[in-house]
């Protein structure tokens, strides 16, 4: 490597930079149906594959197994069982709740897939896989997955 011009320092420099972005995300026709049902009717909707009959929640447009277009909506009770969970105890920007909070995968009754969401009204040390859960909706809803405030243990 060139080492002449000794009067100029080779001391390493680190340049700081902040990147700005402002993305928009489309939920599409399928996502809009799911989110508007949460918002307008406090309903959790699944979608059923015409080929393999699996019910997906949250919904998608094509079956991941069959690549068939899905259009048959299925209304779910919202009740389900906890299939996995963790307790978040660290803090990062853009978190949906103040830590500590629990979030888990909920196997919804009548669906073939789990859905991730936050757990509430529960002692963080007493969460158990298999426990029965039901959704608690927010008062003010805006067409977001967070229109469900959390899932709580059902009586």
């Amino acid at each position, binding site marked *: *490597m*060139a080492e*002449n*011009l000794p009067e*100029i*320092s*080779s*001391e*390493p*420099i*680190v*340049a*700081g*930079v*902040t*990147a*700005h*972005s*402002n*993305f*928009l*995300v*489309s*939920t*599409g*026709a399928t*996502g*809009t149906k799911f*989110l*508007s049902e949460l918002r307008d009717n406090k309903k959790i909707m699944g979608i059923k594959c015409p080929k393999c009959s699996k019910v997906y929640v949250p919904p998608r447009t094509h079956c991941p197994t069959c690549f068939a277009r899905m259009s048959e909506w299925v209304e779910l009770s919202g009740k389900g069982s906890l299939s996995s969970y963790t307790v978040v105890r660290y803090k990062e920007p*853009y978190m949906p709740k103040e830590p500590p909070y629990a979030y888990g995968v909920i196997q919804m009754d009548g669906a073939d897939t789990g859905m991730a969401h936050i757990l509430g009204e529960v002692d963080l040390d007493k969460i158990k896989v298999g426990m029965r859960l039901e959704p608690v909706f927010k008062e003010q809803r805006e*067409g*977001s997955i967070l229109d469900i405030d959390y899932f709580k243990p059902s009586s």
Partner: protein
Amino acid sequence: MTAEQKKEEQPEFIQFRYPREVPYEHALGYQSKFANALKQGRIIATKCPVCGRCTIPPRIVCPFHHVKQTEWVDQGQRGRLISAFKINFPMFNSRTGELQNWENPIIAVELEGGARMDGWCAETDPSKLKTGMLLEAVWRPEEERQGRADDILHWKPVEE
């Protein structure tokens, strides 16, 4: 439902916007010497022993010959205009994330030492710019320099 009513009924599509600010820290590595030279009001470049090309950004190896550059070379304070353009619409300032207007043309300069670099032009009227015209670097006051390319405020046309 009549065709008229159908037209009025816009289907709803939910979209989300999520603004983000992400801080990065980029190491300049070998190029740090170039940045330190800027603080002294000097422009330096690496030179290839095979083709004699001086390159900015400086590099450890010549991009064309894949051999180690053996020398740093002072590029002087003057250069000739290669190309220029002026932005006539508000464009984002990547350092602030804000839209702003840009008065000065952006130019590419071939320095006396042979290396080329981008810069701002002091002359704001693009019709007064000619390829090959002689330009001189105008620097920020020494105490304001940060070892960044904009330590050179702009390039000013010089009478020949």
